[in-house]
């Protein structure tokens, strides 16, 4: 069974139709997804500028990775959950969207970077 067939089945479910046609649920979910970016990307950016050595250089980087990363991870978890839910509203449209595909590819690459960072060869080992 192809991915598209699965997604077409998903698009026809009562859940998907209800979410897709909802007046408030989808906008609220999307708002949560977007606002969570501030937690996820925001804390990641603060860590990154510290790692680049351009900001808050008097604070040890380990403080950032130990104390700020849990928030980054938590934010990411919420983003994944809301993102998956949002996807189920119009799965076929997202499937056909080149921007969405590029987004997923870039996320995978970013994920590789994160994995490398925490691996024995990376900085935070």
């Amino acid at each position, binding site marked *: 069974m192809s991915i598209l067939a699965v997604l077409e089945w998903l698009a026809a479910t009562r859940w998907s139709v209800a979410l897709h046609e909802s007046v408030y649920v989808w906008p609220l979910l999307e708002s949560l997804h977007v606002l969570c970016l*501030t937690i996820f990307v925001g804390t990641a950016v603060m860590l990154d500028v510290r790692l680049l050595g351009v900001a808050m250089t008097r604070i040890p980087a380990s403080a950032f990775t130990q104390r700020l990363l849990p928030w980054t991870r938590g934010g990411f978890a919420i983003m994944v959950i809301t993102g998956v839910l949002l996807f189920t509203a119009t799965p076929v449209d997202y499937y056909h969207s080149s921007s969405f595909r590029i987004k997923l590819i870039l996320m995978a690459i970013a994920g590789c970077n994160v994995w490398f960072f925490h691996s024995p060869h990376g900085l935070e080992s």
Partner: protein
Amino acid sequence: MIAGRFVAYEATPTRLLARISPWLFPGIESAHLLGLCALGGTLLVVDLRMLGVGLTSQPLDALARAVHPWLEASLALILSTGVLLFMSEAVRVLHTPSFWVKVATLLLAIFYTFTMRRRVAARPGGDTSRLTRVTGAASLLLWLTAAAAGRWIGFSS
């Protein structure tokens, strides 16, 4: 009368934007969002610290001082892109309640951040007082409301 002025005012930037590229408006919107992420990060680091979590090993006043230039830079980015976004759909947005909520809350949040919050964060040794926690919570609430109202503009017709 005011709307009339904005109609004339809006016509030029909108047509200009569209003529340059259909990607210009989404591009400005994306820059606005990235500015939001950066601003969120600078605010969160200090507000979480005020609430007693996050970078707790650092004194609050030093942390707030170190972060402040980044707060100003990301605020400058988000405000400038916000003005551009406003210019491109001024008429529609002036009739949207969310816009007014957003602007009011945003002005309040900026004022609060640069006066009370800054003063509370700069007090030496005031890290764990209740005033600090309340200030941090209030800051988060104000900015979150501004951001949510801003997003809701996009959902209003």
